[in-house]
């Protein structure tokens, strides 16, 4: 189906949205695809998505704020995910979050001022043997201690 209206979205996204427009469960699928494209859900893009798909903007917002998976603000360049599964929790994951948060001056689900890191807490990442575990992008750091946090971060510090 052709796009009947002017839009600022790239063609591939438009096509995807129109393809899913009338299917059940479309909202999550469409948001997924949009986040894949932009790495987060930019506000003007969400407006456009709601318009093209005839979806309720408030509902999109509700879904996007309910699931941790969706971001409404641009994520940092690197994603730090502290595992909060039972094993990691018991082995000191909260202290890791605290350390990261002080070092980076950033709260959970927030992005550092220099936009380098986003700090997240996630459920079991499946490496309980290495608890406590932290994922930075795709890299796994097992048996991490607060003392080793700075060392880990240095691997990603620009120009460092």
């Amino acid at each position, binding site marked *: 189906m052709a796009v*009947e*209206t*002017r839009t600022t979205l790239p063609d591939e996204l438009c096509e995807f949205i129109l393809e899913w427009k009338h299917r059940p469960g479309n909202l999550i699928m469409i948001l997924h695809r949009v986040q894949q494209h932009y790495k987060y859900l930019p*506000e003007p893009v*969400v407006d456009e998505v*709601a318009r093209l798909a*005839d979806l*309720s*903007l*408030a*509902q*999109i*917002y*509700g879904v996007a*704020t*309910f699931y941790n998976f969706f971001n*409404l603000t641009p994520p940092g360049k690197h994603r730090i995910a502290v595992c909060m599964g039972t094993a990691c929790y018991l082995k000191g994951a909260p202290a890791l979050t605290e350390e990261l948060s002080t070092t980076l001056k950033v709260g959970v689900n927030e992005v550092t001022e220099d936009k380098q890191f986003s700090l997240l807490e996630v459920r079991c990442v499946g490496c309980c043997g290495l608890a406590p575990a932290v994922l930075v992008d795709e890299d796994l750091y097992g048996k991490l201690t607060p003392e080793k946090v700075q060392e880990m971060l240095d691997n990603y510090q620009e120009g460092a």
Partner: protein
Amino acid sequence: MVRLKIDGRELETAQGNTILDAALEAGIDIPRLCAHPELTPSGGCRLCMVEVSGIQGMQTSCTLEARDGMEVVTVTEEIENHRKITLDGFISDHPLDCVTCDKAGACELQELAYRYDLKETSMHFELGRTLFQDDNPAFLRDHKYCILCGRCVRACSEVVGADALEYADRGFESHIATAFDRPMEESPCVFCGSCVEVCPTAALMTKSRLRKGREWELGKVRSVCTYCGVGCQMEYRTRQVLDAQGKSKTEIVSVNGFPEAPANGVFLCTKGRYGWDYIAKPDRLDMPLIRKDLAFELGITREAWELPGDSPLKVKDARDNFVPVSWDQALDVVADRLAKTVKENGPDSVGGLASARCSNEDNYTFQKLMRSEFGTNNVDHCARLCHASTVAGLAKAFGSGAMTNSIGEVRHADCIFITGSNTSEAHPVIGYEVTRALRKGASLIVVDPRRIPLARKATIHLQAKSGTDIWVFQGMMRVIRDEKLADEEFIKTRTEGFELFASGLEDVTVEEAARVAGVDAEDIRRAARIYAGGIRQEGVSKYGEGRGRSTILYSMGITQRSNGTELVLTLANLAMMCGMIGKESSGVNPLRGQGNVQGACDLGALPNVLPGYQAVTDDALRTTVEKKWGGATIPNKPGLTIVEMMRAAESGDIKAMFIMGENPMISDPNITHVEHSLRTLPFLVVADIFLTETAQLAHVVLPARAALEKVGTFTNTERRVQLSRQVVAAPGEAREDWRIVSEIGKRVAKILGHTDTRWDFRDSADVAEEISLVSPIYGGIVHERLPGDGLNWPCPDKNHPGTPILHVGQFKRGKGAFTPVTPKGPAEMPDEEYPFYLGTGRMLYHYHTGTMSRRTEVLHWKQPKAYVEIHEDDAAEMGIADGKPVVVESRRGSIRAAARVGTTVQRGMVFIPFHFREAAANLLTQDENLDPTAKIPELKVCAVKVTNPAAKKKVAVAS
């Protein structure tokens, strides 16, 4: 019926009801906070827990359907403990400041805390939600009072269909939000206040009500909204204040819905809920006024007057052209002049415009004055400009020109067919009914050149080019005939003329119809099948095998056309062909625009019929009425219609006019012409509540009362006659229109020597008594029967219960009549010079000529100025940006307004709402091409050119 036992009592309840419903019916008050009788249950608050035999554990009674043989217990120690703990949770983060809270006395949380004797919480959480949003003049959002029951979210999406609110975030952060927590104004909110109405706490509060008194101190007056034909019932909350003279007077503080309201339940639209403050504006007329030149002539004063300026619209303070006089002075002049005109120039030299904004009593006395005193049928009103073709067309097909079903039946339809009606804006509460039906699985077919809000939710939107919808209808009927979808049985037993009509369908093929209308032939076929079968979204009828129920809703997009009557006949043909009429939730339903347009027609404010649609040409009927009017002589030929009267005024055939509550200077087509006609009149008298654009041209202006200031009956679009009560006192010396008319009648009768016509009505109930004697369809409708739901006419006698559905078993005229119709396009087509179609109509926030709605805070705030809807591609080609001015010009005039760029209109079309005098759409519309039967002008289609004043060179682009 389902039988079950609750707390040991044997109860019966309707199939599909929940345990909570059944309990409440029996007066068992189960505590609850998230459930609301008008909303789907959500099971969120967990207060309504009960125990049910055979089911383990406690159950939420608001979500559990009642079944035969259930045994339910609503109170046990365990349940009560659970409720107490749950409530404790609710008040744990709630500011318990009931001592100053405006909601006190109406707050459901307070009520439950009292019931469970919870003085304080045992949990002490910090308040999670602290957001306080004061971003609009209608209501406040104070999240610290919010208990997250979600009623507001459900009301907004399930009923209103605006989808402005949703739960956002989660855990302690969880709150009710607009998208991106934007201000209400930037959300799709339509400011209907439905969320406020259902909110159990002070989280959502009407602003006008704050600090004006507690619930138990406020007065409550049940009345009727007169802003549109839905005729919602509402409750005015009032208080007593002292006026400047130290006298106590009643002041409105807010409008609430109430559950028993027949057409609307607790819901209202923005106009009804927030559009009442115009009544207290300082520029209300409170004294009769006489134009200075006439006053001078009459020697009322010797001062030298400055004569009126060139155009009344240019005069700064129009009141400077008038002098206030006493009622006697004013009425004497009016009676003298009108009587003199009749004596010197004959009865038909006088004309009158009654009003769809006035009550039945007002309209009845008005047409009685014109007919019995002046002896002319020159009486009409703006229904001419909206539904004259409905009255003509449906009377021909069925024998009665009104909605065949009631509003509440829309909700139960399987298929809703909407054409030429922007229902959610012009009749918002009927729009809610459509939204509810869709939610329950009904299908929706929209045929409209604009992508109106409901079109976005439609199963099929046939966006036929302006003026070509008739091809779509013909195409659909062709499909129904060819595919044998017609209801043979119905056609055979209930109708006549089918053969001739059906053979006419040969003339247009579906492909041709699709081509002319610019739509997909396959969509026409699908629409035909869905309508004919009454097929729901999921493909089946709610009523099992057989045909479902399809209902047609239409409005001015159909009627305001040069072939309006034929279009109405076409819809009647379509309905009869499929047997979709004369049963519940299935019929042909014209949505009447103004508050009392149905009543004004019913009471004979039309040139061809006496009250109750008794034709003036019918000798027997006419003489009966003449007798009841004390031997008056009513002419046996129809009088002039609005547009004809304007022409006659211009040519000098009409020398005096009486206009009651109408403003043709904004509402009528080709205003330049109207202005010229009215200015030519040797005598013009206007009764109104403000000095309208029309009143400014009058010789005498009489101050009238608004609906809120008088008692009267109004007939809504479903033929329901409802009693509107007086809420506040009228300003100054303003009087009811029927009283003004009767006073004139008395005086004229004396001058002309008509001694037997009755004008000494005691009150409006007295007028209604006379109506019941003169108009057979109102035979049983008198004021004392009306408190409550009102009565749907026909209601022939005082024991008759009224008639919500017309044509059951038999049409009013006997057999339904098919009429062959040849499709025809609009009279004025776009051409090289005027390449765009112009459509005109209403928008949600304003009413008619804006006299009232533009004087209210909320409505004016929301839509302060005129706009022109244009398609984004056309706009782009002309370099027109959203919000920037455009000039629209027709053969008759030109206006300038801000562009609203988007995809609501098609390419090659512009749409302008007609409420705004500074960019009056009716400067552009035409008054030449009248529908031959109904004499309605083609307000919906004319040709214009659109230019961008910012562009150096004029460019005009057609599609």
